[in-house]
Structures are given as structure tokens and as C-alpha cells.
């Protein structure tokens, strides 16, 4: 394997403040030389990255830098967009995500996702949370009740909604809706949760609650959060990756990746420092 024998510090255009793992078994996501295309447009080029298990990893960068696109590769949500193409190695739990015949449905059950816009289904709170378990064939009422309560509790929402489980999910406030979506994902017990700017559309109190719950669940779930809020990345994450599209029309790259403390206090790349100190973006 070329990627394994080469000097990881100089892999691709990226600077790493912590060497990449040699064995894919050591990373939840093991990404090497990933290229992503929207039709003819090469949106991301040569991304190599590890995502560590049971840690919170933040993807930061100015808007349009491909961080969400990259996130969506990790559970193949980009498949929903016609004309997209992925090149490179992308392993989840050592398995090739884009391997032939791999079922994206199974992947997404294990790699859940939270979106920028809270998107509860127009159904009751209970049905929202029970949706995933029901997909898996759980019909037993007691079992479902237990899953719903546990998931809502983990999402710090149980106390607020336990009396109104039959109310429509859309009746909740934006922040509550987002926590409902998190509960919904937790109900299927994913190994990873991808969060695509989960806090950009909700109020500050709810942001606090969501950040708290991220810390509470991270020993059970690997979390990747895309955010353009650097303070948030610094607050919640253990690892940070900085994406950048320097020239419009050119592919975005991963500039720097490493432990959050390193990235924010001692960045290797000048561009990372510029971004973090607010010179652009």
C-alpha cells in the first residue's frame, strides 16, 4: 500500500500535527486520497484523514469549503445527488464504504446524521423517535416505549416532552426539534453521528444543551461536527480538521488536521492561523 508506506506527514497537501494511523483498524473513518466530484466539478481533492473512535471531531472552514460535502461522503448521503462521484479510499470500521455491493442503508443506520435544518417528520414526537426502531422491525410497545424514553433522555429532551409525546414534532421550538432529531438518531444506536452545522439555525440556550449532550454521549458514540463557528469547535471537539477552497472553481483541500488544542494554539499552516485569527472566512 502506497499510502501506508509513504511519509504520512507529507501526505497530500495537508499538514498533520499528529501522524496518521498506519492500520485502518485504529480509526473509525480511515480516509486516503479522497476526491469528490459534482458532475465535472472537482469539489474536494486529495483528502486524507483519520477520525478517532469515541472522540468529537470538528470540521471547520469558510462556507463552500467542502466540509459538508466531505461529511456527506461518510454516510453516502451524496448518493442522493445525481452525478456525484467519489475516488479514493474511504473505510468505515475497516470496511470500504463505497465498495461494490455495500448497502448504504446499513451504513447510514450505523452512521447517523443531524442536519443544519431541524427536520422532524410531520408526525408525533413519539413516532419520530420510534421511526428508526420500527424500521428495524421492533413492534413491541413496551420495547418501543423504553427506547423512546431512553433516547429522549439522552438527548436532554425527555423532561420537556414526556407529557406531550403525542404532539406533532413540528410543534416544538427549533432547538427542541433539533434535540428531537438527535434523539431520533440515538434511537437506532448508531456508532457515529455526523452533525452538519447542527446549531446554526437554533437559539443559544439550545446550543448549550446540544453541546452538553454531545459530551455526555461521546463515550458511546463517535461524533463528527461540521461548524463554521470556531468557538464551538474549540469548545466541543477533541480533533479539528480545517478545510479550505482557496480559489473559486478550484477544488477544496484539507489544509490541516490534528488535535484541537494543537490546531488552535499552534497551527502548522499559515492559512490555518489566518482563519483562526479571523483574517478571512
Amino acid at each position, binding site marked *: 500500500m502506497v499510502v501506508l508506506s509513504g511519509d504520512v506527514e507529507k501526505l497530500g497537501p495537508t499538514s498533520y500535527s499528529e501522524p496518521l494511523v498506519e492500520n485502518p483498524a485504529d480509526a473509525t473513518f480511515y480516509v486516503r486520497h479522497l*476526491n469528490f466530484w459534482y458532475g465535472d466539478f472537482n469539489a474536494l481533492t486529495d483528502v486524507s484523514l483519520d477520525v478517532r473512535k469515541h472522540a468529537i471531531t470538528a470540521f471547520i472552514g469558510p462556507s463552500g469549503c467542502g466540509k459538508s460535502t466531505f461529511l456527506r461522503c461518510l454516510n453516502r448521503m451524496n448518493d442522493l445527488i445525481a452525478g456525484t462521484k467519489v475516488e*479514493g479510499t474511504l*473505510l468505515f470500521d475497516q*470496511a470500504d464504504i463505497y*465498495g461494490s455491493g*455495500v448497502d448504504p442503508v446499513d451504513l447510514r443506520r450505523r452512521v447517523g446524521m443531524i442536519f443544519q435544518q431541524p427536520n422532524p417528520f410531520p408526525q408525533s414526537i413519539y413516532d419520530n423517535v420510534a421511526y428508526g426502531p420500527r424500521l428495524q422491525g421492533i413492534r413491541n410497545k413496551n420495547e418501543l416505549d423504553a427506547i423512546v424514553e431512553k433516547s429522549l433522555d439522552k438527548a436532554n429532551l425527555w423532561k420537556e416532552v414526556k407529557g406531550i409525546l403525542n404532539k406533532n414534532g413540528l410543534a416544538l421550538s427549533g432547538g427542541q426539534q433539533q434535540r428531537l432529531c438527535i434523539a431520533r438518531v440515538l434511537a437506532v444506536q448508531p456508532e457515529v453521528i455526523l452533525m452538519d452545522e447542527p446549531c446554526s439555525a437554533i437559539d443559544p440556550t439550545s446550543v448549550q444543551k446540544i453541546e452538553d449532550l454531545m459530551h455526555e454521549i461521546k463515550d458511546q458514540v463517535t461524533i463528527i461536527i461540521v461548524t463554521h463557528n470556531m468557538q464551538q469547535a474549540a469548545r466541543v471537539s477533541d480533533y479539528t480538521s480545517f478545510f479550505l477552497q482557496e480559489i473559486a472553481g478550484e477544488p477544496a483541500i484539507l489544509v490541516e488536521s490534528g488535535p484541537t488544542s494543537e490546531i488552535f494554539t499552534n497551527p502548522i499552516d499559515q492559512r490555518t492561523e489566518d482563519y483562526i485569527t479571523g483574517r478571512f472566512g
Partner: protein
Amino acid sequence: MSDETNRDLSAYPIEEPLSEEFVELEEFRHEEGELVDYQSDSDDLGTLDEAVEEDGGRNSFVDVLIGNVDADAPVGIDDQFVLGEEMPTGKLQLVTRQTQIKEFTLMSIFFACAIVAVLGVTLIFAFVAYKAFPIFTEVGIGNFLTGTEWSGTEGLFGIVPFIVGSFVVTIGALVIGAPLAVMTAVFMSELASPKIRSFVRPAVELLAGIPSVVYGFFGVVVVAPFIARLFGGVGFGPLTAWIILAIMIVPTIATLTEDALGAIPMGIREASFAMGANQWQTIYKVVLPAAKLGIIDAIILGMGRAIGETMAVLMVVGNAPQLFAGITAPISTLTSQIVLDMGYATGTQRTALFGMAAILFLISMSLVLFVRLLSRFGQEMSG
């Protein structure tokens, strides 16, 4: 080449140069993978072991093609890494054949339902044309299309009076109805306060809901006597038909025009106002030109509605197989003559009625086609 290179190829180092054939197969494999995206159903997914078991002993199509077949080894997920040397094995479930079949079956059912529309429209035209076919031998296409006399008893089957009648009725209805409808739409979209709009729009929708036989009835009991008093005669003729049809096509044209107006970005209106234009200037110079194609679409579809309208026209147009001879002289149209004669027509006359139906079908279909071409033209203009 790099654009076309499959990710699997770039991911794993390969000692031997790739043959073209191999690349094609890899691409094929990728496409096949896309084909099954989301079409699996987790209800059918067993455990990983089951999936492997199900795949056991079965080599994938691609593997067979590229000669990568090991008769004894079960072909499962391990296969993904045949090209890498020490690549560890993964644990993602594969799409099972069962789920593929299930999702494919579902999609096929949906597709079959969608095809019903194609079959229906083909069948209608084919059958009507088949029934009309003897017209070529029995009447002659020339006599049929250019004859001005229609008389079943004399064996004369010229449909010029009906074609003229249909167009007279349609054009007149458009002249009255189209401006009315477009202006109503502009009113709803640009001028009316939300309160007034919430009153006018349901009215337009209800107008669309009134059955044509009620319009015809209204024409018989209200409009025709009124016209008779104004112009003499019986009151049945093109003018009455114009008025009734004009009202009937208002909802069609108004609704579609309003959609077209609604699709114009708000910003261009504001830009116009910001330059000191008043409301009329904004409507006339900015809004209407921007929605031009949509409005033409709407009018053409209104035209389709008018030309195919049957009962209302039948009841008010006078039903005389004569050429247009004035706005109050009774005429007949393609649609109304079919209803009138179908009850008793036999032999050649029936064939001629089917011929008229085929012509109506072709007219309405070409209007639809025209709208299609127009919108493609519009897309090319803007894109």
C-alpha cells in the same frame, strides 16, 4: 482519463497496467452499484453472517467477467480487497439479492403505473384512428378535409364547416377570455391585498369547478335570450359561445398566468420601483415581459380547453353544419357535431365522426407539443 478512473482503481496500487476492458468493467460495476442505491429494504436484511451466507458460493457478475473467480471461496465482502495486499476485512453489510429484487419489483410496479398514461394515450389515438381509417376509401381524404357540405342523407361528409366553427369559437373565446384572465391574474399577483386575493382566488378556482353542462345550461337560459333580444334571432351562435367559453377558460389561463407571475423573483419588481417606476410601468415593462413565455403557455392551454370543450358549446352554438356567417348565425363545431350525430350515425357517417375525433386529438396534442417546445425554447434563452 483521470476523470474516468474509478475510485477503486486509484485506491489500490496495481502492478500491471490496466487493460481498457478492465476499466470498462470497473465502471460498469460502479454503475451497477448506483443502480441499487436506496432500493434495498432493511426489513429483509439479516445479520452479516446471513448476508455472507447468502452470497456464499456465488461469484459476482463482475468477478466472473474479469476472470476473478475462485470456485470454492465464497465471494463476499472480502472480495473488495483482493487487489490490496494486507487490506483488512470490513464489516459493512452488502445489499442482499432479496432486497434488490424487492426494491426492483416495487419500482417496476410504479413504472408500470406510469406507463399506463403512455399506453392510454397511444391506445386512444390508435383506436380512434383505426376506426376513422375507412374515411380514406369511403370519402377520400380530400373530400373529407376540404368539403364544405355535411349531410348524412346525401352522403356528403365535408368537415370544413366544423373546423371553421371550432376555430371561430375558440379564437373568439380567447379574444375575450385571455385578456380578462391575464388581467385577473396580474390583479391577484401584483395588486390585490392578501385579503382581497383570498377572495378572488377561490372564486377563480370555483369557476374552474363548475361543470361544463352547467355553463351550457346558463348559456341556454341566460346568455342566449339576452343575445336574442339584442341582435334578434334565436340567440344561439358564435357570440353566445364566445361569452360562455370565455368565462370557462378564465380559470385555466388565470391560474397558470398567476403561477408564471409568482415565479418572477421579487427583486426585479423592487428594482423597477427603486428607479421611480410606478406600478403600471412595473407591470407593463418588467413583470409581463418576464412572464411572457408562461403567459403564452397559459393561453395555449386555454385554447386547448376551448377547442375541446363539448357540452357547453353544443348547448349554445346553434348546431347548424354551416360555414361561419355572422356572430349570431348558428354554426357547429367538431366536438358538438360528434355528440349530435353519434347517437344515430352509422356506416360512413360514423367513420367521419371518428375522423373528426382523430383531428381533435391531433390538434390538442400539437398544442401540448407546442407548449413543450416553447418552454424548451425559454430554457435555452435563459440558460
